[in-house]
Every structure is written in C-alpha cells, then in structure tokens.
C-alpha cells in the first residue's frame, strides 16, 4: 500500500520535472476523485422538435479519460457540444465544479475542444492558430512564444510556427488542433471524433499519444467516438450510449467482460449471443447443452448468454459439449476467424489454429467465458384503453399507434357473452368502459412483413442484433414506440415493415386503477 502511494508520488514528481510549471498550475492531482462535470437529468430537444436526449445523468471526475461511445445519432456529440457550450440543454442542469454552467457561453468556460475536422483557421499560420486563445486573453508576447514552443514540442512539431495550415498533413493538423486547445490550459479537453479523419496507422499512433498526453497533463479528457476499439484502448471510463440513453458506464474491462445488456454485448467487440435458460444453481442451458457459469439467477429464468469468440475452445469431434462443422475459416493476421455450424446455431470463434471447411469439430466453454444477461421481460408492453364492445366481435382497444379488435375472452379470461352483454363467471355485468389494458407479446411470436398494411403497426427498422439462429430487430413507429421482433430473415436498417402478432399470442392485462 505505502509503496504504491510513494511510487505514484514519485512518478508525478518526475513528470512535473519534465513538464513546465504552467502545465501543472492548479491541477490538484490529489483530488482525482472529485466530480468535475455533472449532468443532471439533461434533456435536449432540437429546434425542429427532434428529441436527441430524453433524460440523461452523468458524472465525470477530475482527471479522468472518459469516452462517450455509441453508434452515430446516439446523442454523444450533442452531450459533448453541451459541455463545450455550443448547445444549451432544454431541461436539466450542467454543473462544472458544482456550479451550473448551462447558460455560460463557450468563451467563458475553462474547456477547450478539438473539433472533428480540426477547424484550424486557414487564414492564420500554425503559430497564430495556437496563440489565438492566448492573444485574446491578453497574454504578453514573450509568454505566448514560450507556450507555443512548449506545446509544439509536446505534439512533436517543433519549428512549425511559420507553416501555413494548408501545407500540413492530416496527422499534423490533428496535432496542431490539440496544441491549440491545450495551450490554454483548460480544465477539460473535449475531443469530438478527433481521430476519425486519420488513416488506420496514424490513428493507432495518435491513440497512444493522446493517452500519454492525458497522463502528462492530468486534465480531464472527454472523447467522443463510434470506434469501440479506440474507446477500449484509451479510456479510464467508457460511457456506452444508444438512442440518447446511457446503456452502461464502466471501465473498458467491465464493458467488454460484463456487458449489461444485449446492445452493449453486440456493440462492443464480436460476440455470440445465445437464447437459453437457467436450469440449476449457476447452471445454464443453451445450444442444446448445459454449462456452468459464474452468474447466479433463479432457475427457469430466460436468459441471453454472451460468449466472446476468443472464449470458445475448439476440441476434437465427439469431445466438448457442442458438435458442429466448420463452414468458414478466415485469416485475420494474428488469429483465425472460424465459423462453426451446429444444428442450433452458427458460432464465431477466434483462435490460432486454421481449419478446413467441412471439418467436424467439438466446441467447449469454460464458466468464465459465459456472460449471462437475464431476458428483458419489460419489452413490447403497450398501454391502451377499451373503447367499444360489440357482441361477437369483442373489444376494440385503442393504443397510441394502433387499434385492435380482440375477443372479449382474451381480456377477461372467464367472461361470458350473453344477449349482447358481458358478464363474469358469477353472472355480474363487467364494466369494460375505458378500462386501461396493457398488451404484450414475445419477440419470437411477432412476424415482420414488408407490406406496411399487413400488420397492426408499421415502422422502420432501427437496429438489429444477430443472435444464434435469428436476428433481433427493433422497429420504431412514427410516434417513436419501439417493437422488438425476432426474425430469421435478414432485413436492413431503415426498412419500412409492419409487425403482426396472432391475437392468441398477445397477452392482455387489465391495469389496476
């Protein structure tokens, strides 16, 4: 314990010697656990009425390297722009050091940004670009010169002061953009997909350099990316986002090894997702076999098992708990990607051996290679109200997106239809008027159809996840309701489809007042 604290202090001291004092001014390294930025129930609706963020809360600590990770359109850049001051939250609070800064303009925030396309001023040379902020603050010429020289050293571009921006390569522009931001000694550095314009090798290099720079400067970095590898490589903390919501916050290891839900499991790294259920204490069944696992859920809980491709062992045919046949084997440099088809699913495996197509193999899993996510039972629940009743036809129930005509028995299980009226088993009339009903269905009971009028509701496919033998689609209707449907066929994101569910598979529950 003591030894480690001493060595940390020593490391800090060494770095402080190496880097000039102004880099360290007021950088309170001891208070690394202080919350620096706090978003409280932030909501953002754009002028055109589109809601990007519904209700989001997030804490960022001093000195952290935080990555906001998610597919495009998930709201990550909007959050960054709100922290930077370029967007105002519609509702909620944005605190910096405990003070609400929601209404502070960007020029008054101790925060600097590295823009996605760098936004270096083309009419100024490298020196004037970097010194832009210093000049505005009225820093004297000598200090300007010193600071510009120091940051240029830091980004490895000594002697570039007089160069015109147009003569710089993408990687050099990137460095100048970083230099221009950190020369102002901000408390927070925001990076908006800053590496996405670079080629692969350059990006790898910059990732490491940024991490190193973060270590040396000790300030808070907030990085936005859609590249999961980048996020895992660089960050202390990853915030996985989708659809304006935080899916999971954790260290890169947590996010990768213990994904909270299917979205995270699918988005981060490659994964095999199997449908299964718990069959005993820490015993899970999927792919027709029973495995031991480390997660403990009640017996019979429906689950999704997430298995990383590198955690699957390939053994001799006949051994192992899963049997299958190799259907493809591709070389990826450091490993082979092998696909094995079993009678239930297709499994992706990363390992170091190559196989021939057609090889019979056995597969096995260790307990720590299986991550269990309990089945989300709250999906596909829709609230409606009974609007009318017609003897013979049943109830008409109005939901936000659609209206259903349902036999009365499906709603009131033991009702009796008599003389155009409705009574319960004891013969008393049922008051059905304006009764609120929740309808639910299971994803695998629904059917997708490209004819928009074929189902009870239509919408666009918003995203999908591949699970062992089918795809799980999320369909979003015009009123922004989501419908989750399992389907064996491959559809594309953006396809306009209708969802139909046989009436007998719909479950109706009467809401208690």
């Amino acid at each position, binding site marked *: 314990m003591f030894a480690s604290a001493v060595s940390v202090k020593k490391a800090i001291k060494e770095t402080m010697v190496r880097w000039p004092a102004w880099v360290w001014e007021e950088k309170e390294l001891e208070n690394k656990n202080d919350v620096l930025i706090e978003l409280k129930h932030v909501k953002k609706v754009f002028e055109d009425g589109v809601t990007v963020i519904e209700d989001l809360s997030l804490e960022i600590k001093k000195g952290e390297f935080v990555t906001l990770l998610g597919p495009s359109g998930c709201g990550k850049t909007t959050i960054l722009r709100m922290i*930077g*001051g*370029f967007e105002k939250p519609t509702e909620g609070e944005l605190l910096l050091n405990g003070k609400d800064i929601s209404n502070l*303009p*960007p*020029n008054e925030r101790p*925060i*600097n*940004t590295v*823009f*996605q*396309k*760098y*936004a*270096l*001023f*083309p*009419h100024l040379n490298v020196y004037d670009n970097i010194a*832009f*902020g210093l000049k*505005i*603050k009225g820093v004297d010429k000598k200090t300007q010169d010193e600071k510009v020289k120091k940051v240029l050293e830091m980004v490895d571009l000594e002697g570039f002061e007089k160069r015109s*921006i*147009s003569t710089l390569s*993408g990687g050099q*522009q990137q460095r100048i953009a970083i230099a*221009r*931001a950190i020369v*102002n000694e901000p408390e927070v550095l925001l990076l908006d997909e800053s590496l996405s*314009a670079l080629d692969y090798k350059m990006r790898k290099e910059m990732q490491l350099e940024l991490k190193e720079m973060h270590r040396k400067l000790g300030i808070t970095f907030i990085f936005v990316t859609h590249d999961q590898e980048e996020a895992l490589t660089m960050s202390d903390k990853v915030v996985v986002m989708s659809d304006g919501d935080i899916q999971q916050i954790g260290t890169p290891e947590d996010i990768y090894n213990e994904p909270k839900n299917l979205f995270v499991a699918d988005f981060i790294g490659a994964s095999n997702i199997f449908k299964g259920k718990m069959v005993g204490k820490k015993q899970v069944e999927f792919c027709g076999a029973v495995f031991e696992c480390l997660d403990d859920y009640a017996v019979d809980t429906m689950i999704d098992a997430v298995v990383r491709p590198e955690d699957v062992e390939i053994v001799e045919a006949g051994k192992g708990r899963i049997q299958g046949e190799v259907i493809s084997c591709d070389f990826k440099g450091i490993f082979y990607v092998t696909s094995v088809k079993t009678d239930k699913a297709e499994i992706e495996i990363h390992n170091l051996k190559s196989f021939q197509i057609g090889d019979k193999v056995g597969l096995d899993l260790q307990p720590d290679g299986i991550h269990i996510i309990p089945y989300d039972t709250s999906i596909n629940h829709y609230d409606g109200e009974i609007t009318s009743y017609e003897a013979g036809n049943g109830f008409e129930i109005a939901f936000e997106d659609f209206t259903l005509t349902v036999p009365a028995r499906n709603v009131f299980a033991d009702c009796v239809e008599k003389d155009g009226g409705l009574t319960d088993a004891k013969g008393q009339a049922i008051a059905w008027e304006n009764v609120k009903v929740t309808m639910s269905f299971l994803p695998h009971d629904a059917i997708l159809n490209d004819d928009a009028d074929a189902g009870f509701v239509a919408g666009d496919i918003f995203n999908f996840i591949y699970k062992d033998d089918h795809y799980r689609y999320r369909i979003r209707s015009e009123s922004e309701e989501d419908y989750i449907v399992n389907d064996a066929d491959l559809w594309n994101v953006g396809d306009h489809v209708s969802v139909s569910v046989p009436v007998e598979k719909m479950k109706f529950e009467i809401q208690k007042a």
Partner: protein
Amino acid sequence: MSRDFTEEKTLKYSFSRKQLAIPYCIFLILFVILPLLVVIFYAFTNDEGQVSFANFIAFFQSSKTVGTLVYSIVIAVVTTLICLLIAYPTAYILAKTGMRSGSALLLLFVLPMWINFTLRITALKEILTLIEGNLAFHPFFNTILCMVYDFLPFMIMPLYNTLTKLDDSYVEAAQDLGAKKSHVFLKVVLPLSVPGIVSGVTMVFLPSMTNYVVLDMVYNSTYIMGSLIGSYFSAYDWHNGSVISIILLLIICVITFISNRYAEGDDRQQGKVSVLK
C-alpha cells in the same frame, strides 16, 4: 467492305476538339483583339497618323479631364463603400442566422436585376422627383442613390456565397478559444470573407466608374469617365476617346490583378477545406 466504308466516313467527318474552337477564335479576333488594336492605335497616334504620347499628356494636363477621373473615382468609391456597408450585414444575416426563408429573401434582393436597368432608374427617378421636387438640387446624392440601388445585388451575391460556405466550426473554434462575438467576427469571419468582399468590390467599383446613363437620367451634368468617352466619340475625336479607354483598361488590369491574388488565396483555402473533408 463495310469496314472500309466506316473508316472513310469517320475520316471525312471527324474533327478534333481544337477545331471546335474556330468560331470562338474568329469572334475573339473580330470583336476583341481587332477593336483593342484599333483603340491602342488611336490612343498612341495624332491626327497626322504619327506615333505620339501627346494625347496622354493632354489628358493629364487638362484639369477638366483629370477632374473627371477624380470625380469618377469618388463616385465609384462612395458607391462601393455604401454597397459594402449595406450588403455585408444583409448577406451575413441571410447566410448565418439560419433563417428558413433566407434564400427567398435573397431572391427579393436579387430580383431587381431581372428588371431592365433603365426602367428601374426611371422609376426611382420619378419617386425622387416627387420627394425632392427638382432633381438638379442634389445631383451627387441622387447619383449615388441610383448607383447603389443599381449595384447592390452585385455586392450581396458574392458575399452571400462566401458567407454560406464559411464553415460554422471556425466560429465555434474561435468561441471555444475564448473569443467574444466581436472578436469572432473581426478575427475569423471577416478575414475569411475577404474573397467575397474583393469580388463584390470588383463587380461594383468598375461599372460605377463608367455608368454615365445614371448621371444623365438624374440630370447630373458632371462628367464621369464613361460620359467623357461618349462625348469624344460622338464628336469623332477617336484619339482622346481611345486614351480614356486605355486608362480605364489599366485601372481594370490593376484591380483584376489584385483581386486575382485574393481569388487564388480563396482557392487554396477551399483546397484546404476539401483536404480536411
């Protein structure tokens, strides 16, 4: 057989791209190069047909002609400045405030260009007569007013184009680095819109030096360069008329040279932007 036939046919009717330029070259020679040579010839000869610089010396010695040159430049400078002062904020608001009807409003500003120029000036003249009674009382003011009215669209258009192309991220970057709104404008927006200003100035300055029709119509009896050429040529004084044409040509050359340098800068800058994208 058939192959020979097609070959023969293509040989007979094919002509290279260079040949397509022939009509243009003929036009250029007949209506640009030859007249220019004639003007140069007349400018540097006297009535006896001998080469002489007397015409130029006479131009710069006569207080009347130099006065006209100065008056033309004053009119052009004032017109250009007023156009710039009106057009810049207008173009900025249209381009940058995210007005949905921005382009429709722009059309309103540009629409007068579609109406015949004499008609527009006549209409304005009638209105001015109603207000002022006699136009001859304020010849300079009336001239400038009509010129500005006439040339404003030519200033707005290039400014609007430059400002719409100006990436908002530059503005955000400046704010991010601590710049107040005034700083953002002076240090980023204005320098980056210089190419638009230059091309607008070029499009307003030169025509307003020579557009004597406006002066005629508002009864401004002072001569500008255009009216001087007109009066010499209508008196069959080819030599003096040509001299003034040459002087104007030189002014045009100088201004084009300057603006080309800025335009090159503009190209480079756009090259940069495309590299980044």
